[in-house]
């Protein structure tokens, strides 16, 4: 099996059908990134398609210095950010505390060491709290805390400086805490 750089070269040379193979290799990663920003599965699929179409259009700019996975991940994050900004304009917070499962609500009102939380419940709570943050704050929190990226990597994805990301991370964390406290208080 050829590596991604060879595959990209073949596609650029005219073997357009090979793009399906490239998509198959990276679709799970792209879905995983986008699902952190959007919970609706149909929208996640639309955003994933948008990501791969953007990559197709920009394939000439892929120089192979960084792995294709990093390149497509950046496009996915930017697509998710564009989506959050559009959503902010057209949609109000349509997820309410009533949408949280019983386990998630129990955990919110309990002490940390006395209650366990499943992945689904945690993701629901986080999503609800993150919706109250500006899109860039959300992107920084998701990349730093859920995807384990460094400040340098986040800065490259968001096309900003490391200092700016550090400052935003501190501010975003404080905002997230406040949002979670509000949810816990039933606001």
């Amino acid at each position, binding site marked *: 099996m050829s590596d991604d750089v060879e595959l990209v070269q073949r596609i650029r040379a005219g073997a*357009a059908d090979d793009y399906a193979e490239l998509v198959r290799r990276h679709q799970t990663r792209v879905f995983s990134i986008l699902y952190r920003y959007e919970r609706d599965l149909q929208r996640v699929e639309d955003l994933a*398609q948008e990501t791969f*179409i953007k990559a197709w259009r920009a394939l000439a700019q892929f120089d192979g210095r960084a792995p294709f996975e990093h390149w497509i991940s950046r496009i996915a994050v930017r697509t998710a950010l564009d989506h959050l900004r559009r959503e902010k304009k057209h949609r109000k917070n349509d997820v309410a505390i009533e949408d949280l499962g019983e386990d998630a609500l129990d955990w919110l009102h309990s002490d*940390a060491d006395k209650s366990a939380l499943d992945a689904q419940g945690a993701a629901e709570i986080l999503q609800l709290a993150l919706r109250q943050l500006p899109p860039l704050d959300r992107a920084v929190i998701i990349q730093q805390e859920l995807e384990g990226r460094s400040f340098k990597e986040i800065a490259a994805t968001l096309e900003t400086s490391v200092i700016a990301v550090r400052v935003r991370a501190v501010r975003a964390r404080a905002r997230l*805490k406040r949002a979670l406290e509000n949810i816990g208080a039933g606001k």
Partner: protein
Amino acid sequence: MNNLKLKQLFAAARRETPPVPATDFAAAVLRAARRETPEEMPAPAGILEQLNGWFPRLALASLMLIVLCVAADNLLTAASPADSGDMAAQFSSQYFAGPETEDL
């Protein structure tokens, strides 16, 4: 919300399983990509595009070179004003005044 609880929340959320793409997702992307117009098809970057990409760095390097030359010229002039004056006089007499003198 204390830090321990926030850590717990992130750790649990990290374990969530992402949705699995539909089996025909890659084919659907390919169909959509094929609908793109030929102008939007991926193509190697042209020489002008590459130069355009290099432009800020080339401009900065040229500017630095010019500043370096001007600074070096000023330094040399300040260090030996008489010598450079003599050299200029010698140069002008050799190449401008020289042949006329011979003709006379």
